[in-house]
C-alpha cells in the first residue's frame, strides 16, 4: 500500500522562493500525516505563463531548493514541477522525482504545446524520452500535461509496464458549456483510457488559481488500473487530498483485462522503421 497526497495548489508566478516555502509547508504536513508520496502540479515551483522569466526561475542540480527537497525525501517521496537547466544550459519544463535523499529522476516535457494560448515551444527545449523507473513502491512514469494527450507516451508507459503514471498538469479552464466542460471531459477521458490500456494507476494533479485571466481548473484525480475514479479533488479551489494505492490492484487488473499480455510492439516497430 502506498499513501499518496495530491497537492492541488496555486503557485505565485515567477517567485521561486515563495513557492519553495509553500512546497516545504505542504511536504511537512504530508510527512506528519504519514503519506508516502506527495505530488505537485506542473511548474509548481514557478507558475505557468513564465515567458522571459524562464531562465530566471530555472534550477540546476546544485540549486539549494533541489538540495532541500532531497533532504525532505528522506521522509517522503516527492514529485514537483519546475524549470530544469541542464549542464548545456538548456531549459526544460521538467518534473523532478525525489526519494531516499536522492533526485532519482528528471522527466523533461516532450510535447510542448505551441498553439492557441500556449507558447511553450518558444521558451523550452523539448525532451525526447518517456522512461519508467523503479521507486520504493511501484514502477513509475511521469508525464507533463500535453505529454499525456499523445498516444506515444501512453504506449511508452505500457511497453515499460508502468504501475503508476504521475501526470502533472496546468490545464486551463476552457469550453464551459451548458452540458460539458471541454478541458475536464477531454482530460478525464484521456486519463481513464491511459489507466485502462496500461492497467496502471494514473495520478493526475492539476493546479488551481488564476494567471493572465486564465483559471486553472484543478479537479485532480486518481484512476485505478481498472479505470475507476478512486479519488477526486474539487474544481477551481485548493485542496490537499490523500488516498492509498494498492499494488494488488495492478495485479488484479492485469489478470482481469490482460492487455499487456497481448500487446504486439512489432507492428509499431515495422511502421516506424
Amino acid at each position, binding site marked *: 500500500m502506498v499513501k499518496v497526497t495530491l497537492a492541488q495548489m496555486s503557485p505565485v508566478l*515567477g517567485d521561486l522562493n515563495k513557492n519553495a516555502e509553500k512546497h516545504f509547508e505542504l511536504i511537512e504536513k504530508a510527512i506528519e500525516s504519514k503519506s508516502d508520496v506527495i505530488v505537485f502540479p506542473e511548474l509548481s515551483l514557478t507558475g505557468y505563463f513564465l515567458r522571459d522569466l524562464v531562465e530566471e526561475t530555472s534550477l540546476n542540480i546544485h540549486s539549494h531548493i533541489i538540495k532541500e527537497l532531497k533532504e525532505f525525501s528522506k521522509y517522503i517521496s516527492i514529485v514537483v514541477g519546475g524549470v530544469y537547466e541542464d549542464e548545456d544550459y538548456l531549459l526544460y519544463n521538467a518534473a523532478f522525482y525525489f526519494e531516499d535523499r536522492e533526485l532519482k529522476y528528471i522527466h523533461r516535457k516532450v510535447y510542448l504545446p505551441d498553439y492557441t494560448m500556449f507558447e511553450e515551444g518558444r521558451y523550452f527545449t523539448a525532451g525526447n524520452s518517456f522512461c519508467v523507473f523503479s521507486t520504493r513502491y511501484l514502477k513509475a512514469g511521469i508525464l507533463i500535461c500535453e505529454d499525456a494527450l499523445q498516444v506515444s507516451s501512453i504506449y511508452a508507459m505500457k511497453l515499460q509496464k508502468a504501475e503508476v503514471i504521475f501526470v502533472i498538469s496546468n490545464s486551463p479552464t476552457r469550453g*464551459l*458549456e451548458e452540458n460539458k466542460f471541454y478541458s475536464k471531459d477531454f482530460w478525464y477521458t484521456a486519463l481513464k483510457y491511459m489507466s485502462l490500456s496500461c492497467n496502471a494507476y494514473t495520478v493526475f494533479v492539476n493546479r488551481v488559481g488564476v494567471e493572465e485571466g486564465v483559471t486553472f481548473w484543478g479537479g485532480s484525480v486518481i484512476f485505478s488500473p481498472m479505470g475507476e475514479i478512486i479519488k477526486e479533488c474539487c474544481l477551481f479551489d485548493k485542496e490537499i487530498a490523500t488516498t492509498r494505492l494498492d499494488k494488488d490492484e495492478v495485479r488484479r487488473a492485469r489478470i482481469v483485462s490482460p492487455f499487456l499480455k497481448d500487446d504486439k510492439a512489432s507492428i509499431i516497430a515495422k511502421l516506424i522503421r
Partner: protein
Amino acid sequence: MRLNHEYVTKVLTSFIKDEVEKVGLRNVVVGLSGGIDSALSATLATLALGKERVYAYALPYKTSSEESLNDAKLVADFLGVNFDVIEITPFVDPYFEKFADISRVRKGNVMARMRMIVLFDKSAENNALVLGTSNKTELLLGYGTWYGDMASALNPIGDLYKTQVWDLAEYLGIPEKVIKKKPTADLWVGQSDEDELGFSYKDVDKLLYAMIDERRSKQELVRMGFDEGFVKDVYERIRRNQFKRQLPVIAKVSNRTIGKDFRYSRDWGY
C-alpha cells in the same frame, strides 16, 4: 453558446478576487450605466468581494436619459454597493463649446473618455482597480470607445457574448427591468445599439460564435445559412477594429523591445 452558469460564475468571481488582491488592492470601481453589461460586472464583483468593496458610480451627461440613471440606482440598490452619482456635464461642456461643429460620435467619445478619467481617479481614491464592462460582442465589433469604455484594469465579461451576458444576468437574479430593456450606449437621445449597428445582438452572436469560437470558414458560414453580405460585413468590422484590442504599437530599434521580445506576463511575481 449556452453556458454552465454555476461554473462560469465560479471562474469569473475567483478571477476578480484573485486579480484584484494579487496586486495588493482590495476594491473595485465600476461605472453603472443602467445597462446589463455594467450590471453584470458589478454583480460578479459583489459576489467576489462583498458589497463593501465595490464602488459604483453613475456618470450621466445632461442629455442622458432619466431612465438610465434610475436603472443604475436600481442595480446599486439591488447589490447594496457603495454608490454615487457624478454628472460629467461640467467637465465636458467646456470642451464641446470650444468646437462648435463637433459631431455626435465625437461627443460620445469624449463623454466615454471623461467617464474613464473619473473612474480611474476614483480607483486611486478607493485603493481599487477599474472593472471593465465590455462584452465579447462589443470587443469583436469594436463597438466602444478606445480608452473610454473599453479601458479597464480587469474585465470579467470580455469573453461572454451579449446573449450569454443576458443569460448569466438572469441566472444571477439581476432585476428583470435591466435585462429586458433595449441595449443603448445612451450617447444621444433615443440611441439604440441595434439600430446603430444595423443588426440584432442575437443574430450577430450566432455568427460570431460560429466564426470565432468554432473557426468556421466564410464558405461554411454561408452554407450554414448566414447571409454572405452579413458575414463579410462582420468580418470586416472585426478586422478594422483589431487596433482597438491592442496596446499601442512600438517601433522596434533595440534588441529587446517591450511586448515583442521583452515578454513577461501581467501577473509576474504575484
